[in-house]
């Protein structure tokens, strides 16, 4: 019995050695189906590109794949290797970076991510902010101009760089001499805009700042702010300016008085008188008089006060129009509490930025804005991880070697114990 056991171990050893021999002849390095995880991908890519390319590669994506790795895989696929991948845990993450059309600078960052993920925004100097994504991802805005950002979530990273630099033209304010025109103009100038103005003052003439021409041209003005129709020369010119790509911020009263209904942002609705004295304990805009907007079907309400639309926007051909229902916003600056000046300035700058036409100059940018989308674009949709090859790598060889060693050791030990040579 013992001899039979020794012979069995001997035969098992010979069989395993034979299997190794056959396997080494069959599975030459770099051929057949290769399964690899992202951690070892660089080394494998190097081997596949310098020793021998496999017939098929399957990458299990469990963390970020760099653009270089993606491109390398795509090159491999173009050279004839069938490249597949799977990645059930890959986070669909994308980030876009846009400069705010505001002379004060600022950057708008939009991140697409599944709800409930912790997103960390960073640039080369370090972390900027973090937030848990909501139903539509997340939005960040910074006062400082950023050239590039990264968003991290778990082991996944998306990054974006500015595609364009922007430059501005001047602004034109049209209205009548009064606190509203004075303080809106002041706020926009404080923000860095160069402002021309035409303000009605008397039957004998207007107050003119700068040299505004009668014909409005988007190449000259990034946006026009119409606070009152009194000094408006030719509403048709204003409509033409918008259709040619200009930005317009206009009050409800001015729009209706000037016969600008063809802009079709909305019509005036309920009139709410101002709160006097100003209530600084609540939202400052709650104390302003309001001519509510009944927005047109294709207009977008931008701001609500209670259930009334206070600001609405609409695209008109190549231009954009924002309709403002508030009256005397200067009261926000003067009577709206300690932060009224800054809030009023930022609010008006935001309105103008939302419509302003700016000139874009492309910037050279290298970024990985949507890594998952890039993988799909380059390598096609994910496929199931092959079950039969999941154990076809190191696992069987290791066990086979262990079995060989055990069989030989058993045979040698048995023979020594019974005194056989």
């Amino acid at each position, binding site marked *: 019995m013992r001899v039979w056991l020794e012979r069995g171990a001997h035969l098992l050893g010979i069989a395993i050695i034979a299997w190794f021999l056959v396997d080494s002849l069959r599975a030459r390095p770099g051929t057949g189906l290769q399964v690899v995880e992202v951690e070892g991908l660089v080394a494998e890519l190097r081997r596949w590109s310098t020793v021998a390319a496999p017939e098929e590669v399957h990458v299990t994506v469990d963390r970020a794949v760099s653009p270089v790795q993606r491109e390398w895989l795509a090159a491999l696929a173009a050279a004839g290797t069938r490249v597949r991948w799977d990645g059930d845990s890959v986070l669909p993450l994308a980030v876009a970076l846009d400069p705010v059309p505001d002379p004060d600078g600022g950057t708008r960052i939009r991140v697409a991510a599944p709800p409930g993920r912790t997103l960390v925004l960073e640039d080369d100097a370090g972390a900027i902010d973090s937030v848990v994504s909501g139903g539509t991802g997340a939005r960040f805005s910074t006062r400082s101009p950023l050239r590039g950002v990264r968003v991290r979530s778990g082991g996944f990273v998306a990054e974006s760089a500015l595609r364009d630099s922007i430059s501005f033209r001047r602004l034109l304010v049209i209205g009548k001499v009064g606190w509203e025109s004075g*303080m809106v103009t*002041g706020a926009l100038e404080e923000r860095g805009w160069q402002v021309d103005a035409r303000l009605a003052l008397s039957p004998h003439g207007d107050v003119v700042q700068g040299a505004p021409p009668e014909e409005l041209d988007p190449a000259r003005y990034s946006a026009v702010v119409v606070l009152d129709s009194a000094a408006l020369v030719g509403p048709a010119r204003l409509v033409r300016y918008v259709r040619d790509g200009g930005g317009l911020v206009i009050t409800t009263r001015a729009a209706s008085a000037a016969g600008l209904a063809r802009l079709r942002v909305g019509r005036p609705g309920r009139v709410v008188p101002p709160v006097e004295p100003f209530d*600084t304990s609540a939202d400052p805009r709650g104390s302003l008089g309001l001519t509510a907007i009944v927005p047109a079907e294709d207009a977008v309400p931008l701001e609500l006060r209670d259930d009334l639309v206070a600001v609405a926007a609409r695209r008109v051909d190549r231009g954009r129009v924002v309709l403002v229902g508030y009256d005397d916003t*200067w*009261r926000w600056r003067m009577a709206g509490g300690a932060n009224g000046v800054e809030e009023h300035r930022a609010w008006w700058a935001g309105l103008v930025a939302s419509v302003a036409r700016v000139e874009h100059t492309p910037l050279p940018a290298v970024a990985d804005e949507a890594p998952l989308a890039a993988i799909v674009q380059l390598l096609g949709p994910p496929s199931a991880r092959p079950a039969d090859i999941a154990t076809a790598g190191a696992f069987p060889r290791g066990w086979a070697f262990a079995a060989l060693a055990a069989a030989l050791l058993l045979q040698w030990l048995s023979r020594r114990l019974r005194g056989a040579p």
Partner: protein
Amino acid sequence: MSKPFTFATGIYASGDWESASLVPQNVIDVLAKYTSLELNPEGVNVRIDSPELFEYPFLFITGHLPVFFTPRERANLKEYVRRGGFLFVDDHNHDIDGVFHKTMTAELERMFGKLKKIPNDHRLYRAFFEFPDGPPTTSHELNGWGDNLVHDYLMGIMDGDRIDVLYSNKDYSSEWHVKLTENRDRREVDDPAKIAVNIVVYALTR
């Protein structure tokens, strides 16, 4: 309906803030005469230490007597100017080194820093009417009742070229306190309140 321009006179604890009570009505009249500004037909008197001050971005302060602002008045006026309010102070005495002048300029400089002479080619003097020689003289300066002293400049607290606080010791208060139509008839000078139009228009458009 937007709020019309309101001429506000500042009430302060010390001195005689009410010494030129006809000024608001006369300035409103002259603004209505020359401009199409939307105007509140009546001026208001507002305590300079009250939150209501911030509803009136144009503030006129005058008086004859020494002025000492309370800490709350100082803080409110300082914040008022920071937010964009325009403060116009006129010395009702029309003299040099009078008590109002000395105490008021000390108060203004304590709050805002050094008062500067406003150059006579400043935009203030072209804001509506043209005053190529700077501030127009008053009847006092032309020996109506006065001392033949001609103050040939105004002073201000400036932010660059922009005037935030305008200070006059030309005694426009006396000039505009008199019914302007009568005043104009008995003097050789032009309508003395034209400069008031410039001051208001400048405040609204600076």
